[in-house]
């Protein structure tokens, strides 16, 4: 059957994230930072280790932010409400895992083996290892979003080999860490991969994957716009987390973003 000609009388939605989507994603960042700041202001009364309720409150706040902003950004990018809400639910589940369960597991690990001595002998390089593994997982996730969720072989995307390589690196890093590191890093991984936290994280990620799959099935095409919006949001969350830890470097992050964005533009003069 021949393809139907485009209907000139029907207003077509943009095929890429427009200004409205980016505004929603930006709003997600701002509201998320404010929510975390409010929670910390209420909950952290000078204790050296935040209580678990802090993580729970942050996770709930970020989950709500994710539901609203991802749904609005996705819809603004041209998806149906059903797909937008499903995607939002997926990101809300990821927010619960990222801001609630993950940090809780980290501090559970910290109770047994201190992490303050960064990369020192007593810490077993816990933070560095965690950073490398989590960073590799993020890279793999971002590249997957950039490549797999696009409608066709992208002219500017990495090859499948790169994606496979990153995934293998991430999985390999996790396995190697588990096998050869017997100190705090291993304990963190124990908490993150076994017990209640692991069940919670696994459940959250399973729900997230299911809802994201529903979202993409609902859009009929694996929308490039949706993939890009998801990628931007993932990068934004990494940036928020980084800024929370290193607030004094806001100028550095600003300059770094300006320096690398747009990725493939160069200024010869």
């Amino acid at each position, binding site marked *: 059957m021949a393809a139907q000609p485009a209907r000139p009388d029907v207003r077509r939605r943009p095929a890429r994230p427009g200004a409205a989507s980016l505004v929603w994603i930006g709003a997600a960042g701002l509201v998320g930072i404010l929510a975390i700041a409010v929670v910390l202001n209420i909950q952290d009364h000078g204790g050296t280790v935040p209580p678990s309720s802090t993580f729970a409150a942050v996770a709930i706040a970020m989950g709500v932010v994710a539901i609203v902003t991802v749904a609005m950004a996705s819809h603004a990018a041209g998806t149906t409400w059903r797909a937008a809400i499903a995607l939002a639910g997926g990101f809300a589940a990821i927010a619960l895992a990222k801001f609630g369960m993950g940090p809780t597991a980290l501090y559970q690990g910290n109770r047994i083996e201190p992490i303050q001595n960064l990369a020192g002998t007593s810490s077993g390089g816990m933070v560095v290892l965690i950073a490398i593994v989590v960073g590799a997982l993020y890279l793999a996730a971002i590249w997957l979003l950039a490549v797999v969720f696009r409608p066709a072989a992208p002219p500017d995307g990495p090859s499948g080999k790169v994606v496979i390589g990153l995934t293998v690196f991430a999985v390999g890093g996790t396995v190697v860490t588990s096998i050869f590191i017997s100190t705090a890093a291993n304990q963190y991984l124990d908490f993150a991969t076994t017990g209640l936290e692991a069940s919670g994280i696994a459940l959250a990620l399973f729900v997230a994957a299911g809802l994201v799959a529903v979202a993409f099935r609902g859009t009929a095409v694996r929308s490039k716009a949706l993939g890009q919006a998801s990628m931007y949001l993932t990068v934004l969350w990494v940036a928020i987390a980084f800024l929370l830890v290193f607030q004094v*470097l806001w100028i550095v992050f600003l*300059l770094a973003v300006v320096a690398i964005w747009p990725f493939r533009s160069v200024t010869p003069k």
Partner: protein
Amino acid sequence: MSARLRLLGLMVRPRAAITMWTFLVIGLARHAGPTISADLVWATIALAASYAVAASMNDIADVQIDRTNGLRDASRPLATGAASVADIRWTAATAGVIAVAAALPLGASGLAVIGLCLAVDVAYSATPARLSRRWAIAPVALTVAYVALPYVLGIVVAHGAWDAADLPLVAGLCVLFFARIILKDVRDRLGDAAHGKRTLLLRLGKDATCVISIVAAAVGIAVIVLAIRPPAPVVAAIALDAAAIGWMLTRLRVTTDPTAELVTIGTAARAGNAVLITVIAWLLLSAQGAPPAQASLVIATLTAIAAIGFLDLALRPERARVAYKG
């Protein structure tokens, strides 16, 4: 009126203004660490406005060259005919007033620095000095206007005073920037040659210009490292950036395709930006008393991010888009 205000915004050219601002931030970070103040906002406005003066004056002076070089994008309203000479003169005058007004809260020293910036901006493009036509002086004037004066403005914002440790840092930054700025004429060489504008590139040739750039980049980065004395991992990160710059400049020597040349220069500039970001990060973190290991981890992360962007361009230059500092 709104059209002229839009024109004023257009002449700020954010990417170039941010380059100048980077050096202001380095001066600020060196003297005050991580600081946000009203003075920083005023200094930023003054610097951006002074750059608008420079861009306006230069567009008027080089309009024929820009047209010969085919620079007819939106960032060149005079070359495209979207604005008249009178419009651009209004822009320059208004931006000059804004620069001075924004410098007032910074006190006499801030006014003096912005005054010097404006003086260099005018002398660079306008007669009788017209430094842009003097091949040996032009890059030095640009280096002073882009690096040294913004750095000093950063010290003013920090309410600090110039000390002995500033000299090697500014010298290193200036030499590194010199390595970059002498390559800016590669894009415009046809128009420059057609209109008799003598540049270092036309005077000495591409090969010699590339060699000078390579040597200047290496010397500049070495001096910067000696000036800030970071821990070994940070030195390694900077050395990686230096190697990237050297790689691209070596490639530039043998590249003949005009577009490939521009991509190579832009890619080298990205590695140069990574050096500056590393310097700022180290100055801020050390001012906060961060342990070297922690600072090194942050800088390693930043370097890794910069390396991804750099390698993507260096290994697949055919996919790069050439943009301008609009």
